[in-house]
């Protein structure tokens, strides 16, 4: 007989697993199954996985979609483009986010709450609207160009929109809070006494930062970087709205395959490869964070 304590433990552990199984693993398996099908015209627009043609059940699975992804360098370039843009965005978020997070932890208590609130304030508005707002700011006769022309700095509008710059700006702008918050968490948990001890032992402020603050905030750096890198790689709204004709990111390619070309199997294959490609660094980072926690 299962005792109540044991039962509640099973439920407690089982619930999150059931949730993940139902809403993450199961849909992922559907995507995987679609990625192994051929594209057809019909509803749904892909060939069935199992058929029963009288002489037993047959499985139809093809790796053709994955072969296509490897052969057509559009996809490879789109993956690399997404990775490049996302990696740059991560680095820039780190460069801007670290000083901001550090400054917030150094602010007196009553101001800290306000600053954190300001960091999270953009979330109160729809992501889509905020990205649209950048179009109004960046377009040739937009706010920024008008301001620059009015101030006499430039004579003709700068090409700020629909290029690599605007995509990168959009990524950094959108994902900066996801960098700042874990960094803040990790920096504010840092024992002030450790920095004092470093100073006491003769470390000047910069050496104390390099020797104590920075290494102890690495879990925050790792968490923030993952929170920026992973969604940024799959991002399609920002390249779609702010990107130009030469912006190649895998999220947008996936969107186009799915909605414009209505090629569900290829779109699914793109998604499967993306998930696999993201899962590997994620697992590595997880192990790193785990090790830091033990230490």
């Amino acid at each position, binding site marked *: 007989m299962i005792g109540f304590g044991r039962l509640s433990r099973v439920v407690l552990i089982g619930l999150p697993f059931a949730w993940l199984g139902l809403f993450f693993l199961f849909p992922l398996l559907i995507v995987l199954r679609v990625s192994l099908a051929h594209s057809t015209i019909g509803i749904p627009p892909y060939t069935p996985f199992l058929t029963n043609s009288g002489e037993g059940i047959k499985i139809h699975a093809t790796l053709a979609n994955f072969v296509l992804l490897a052969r057509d360098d559009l996809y490879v370039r789109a993956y690399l483009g997404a990775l490049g843009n996302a990696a740059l965005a991560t680095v820039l978020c780190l460069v801007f986010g670290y000083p901001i997070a550090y400054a917030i932890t150094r602010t007196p208590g009553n101001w800290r709450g306000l600053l954190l609130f300001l960091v999270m304030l953009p979330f109160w508005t729809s992501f889509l609207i905020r990205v649209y707002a950048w179009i109004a700011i960046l377009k040739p006769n937009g706010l920024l160009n008008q301001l620059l022309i009015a101030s006499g700095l430039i004579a003709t509008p700068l090409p700020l929109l629909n290029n690599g710059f605007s995509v990168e700006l959009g990524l950094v702008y959108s994902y900066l809070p996801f960098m700042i918050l874990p960094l803040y968490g990790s920096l504010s948990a840092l024992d002030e006494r450790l920095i004092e001890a470093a100073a*006491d032992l*003769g470390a000047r402020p910069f050496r104390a930062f390099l020797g104590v603050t920075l290494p102890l905030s690495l879990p925050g750096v790792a968490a923030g970087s993952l929170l920026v890198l992973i969604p940024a790689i799959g991002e399609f709204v920002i390249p779609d709205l702010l990107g130009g004709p030469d912006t190649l990111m895998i999220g947008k390619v996936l969107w186009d395959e799915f909605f414009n070309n209505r090629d569900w199997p290829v779109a699914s294959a793109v998604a499967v490869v993306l998930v696999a490609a993201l899962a590997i660094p994620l697992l590595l980072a997880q192990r790193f964070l785990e090790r830091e926690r033990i230490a």
Partner: protein
Amino acid sequence: MTLLELEGVSKRFGAVVAVDDVSLTIERGTLFALLGPSGCGKTTLLRMIAGFETPERGHILIDGVDVTALPPYARPVNMMFQSYALFPHMDVAGNIAFGLRQERIDRRRITARVTEMLALVQMADYGQRRPHELSGGQRQRVALARALAKMPKLLLLDEPLAALDRKLRAETRLELIGIQERVGTAFLVVTHDQEEALSMASRLAVMNRGCLVQIGTPAEIYEQPNSRFVADFVGEVNLFEGKLTAAFNCLALDVAGLARPIPLPSRTALPQGTTATLALRPEKLRLWHEPPVEFAIPATVASVGYFGGVSIVQLMVGDGRLLKARVASAAARCFTRGMAVWAGWSPDDGVVITR
């Protein structure tokens, strides 16, 4: 020779005066204790010496050099933090070497010094361990080794034993004294534990509400407290408050609620009518079953507390005030609750306090 000199050091946090006009000198090679209740400003004073706080007024001189304006990293002092503040991402050897690495010292000399420090605190085999793999007592040793590694002129110890359990505390206290004598560095220990201060320090200062109340050797502080606060805070004490009168051919204290005035020490030189307090340590009290020839006051045994070798007998006298007497447990056995006894002492064992 004077090592540390504080000249009229004051510090306020908002409206709260944390340290009020403190002047103090500490000699080279001594173990000096700063004793006071929590919140008396002793830690703030220590942090000002380390350089973490800046005094509003006054000067801090180390070896004759004014360090008041120097940042912590430029001062020839090191601190052992109450929480130890060991770097969790470095092993024990890395922690000890941290201070040395800030100087231009070559690697071999750093390694040699780390080994020497590990041996000093009997942690030779623990160099590769991380702080979280150590027990509280081991962490305390590492913190001490790290703070001593740079051979500071003065080592500041903030409640060095507070985080240890009682038995370990007693052992570590002796070790700390041993290490201090071996390295010869002056130690400034901040503590709220009077037993710790009395047993460790060669000199100590008692602090209350930001002010130094009394400075002296442990025996001076204990035997000749200069104020009610010191008498009460350092050790246990019986206090009688009253007015000076003449009786028994000498000065005596007329205490409200007591039938007879209490004789005062013969050295007392205060005018009659002065309000004063007589402080009497519990171990100075003697108990009799019959009225003795000497001065004694009648009392009733209120309780007998057994503390191993000694027992504390609480006595109720006259108006209901309680006195404490410390008696050898063997002798305490013949006193039981409710028993009528006589409590007396030699008048010279008391201390007259006027503030």
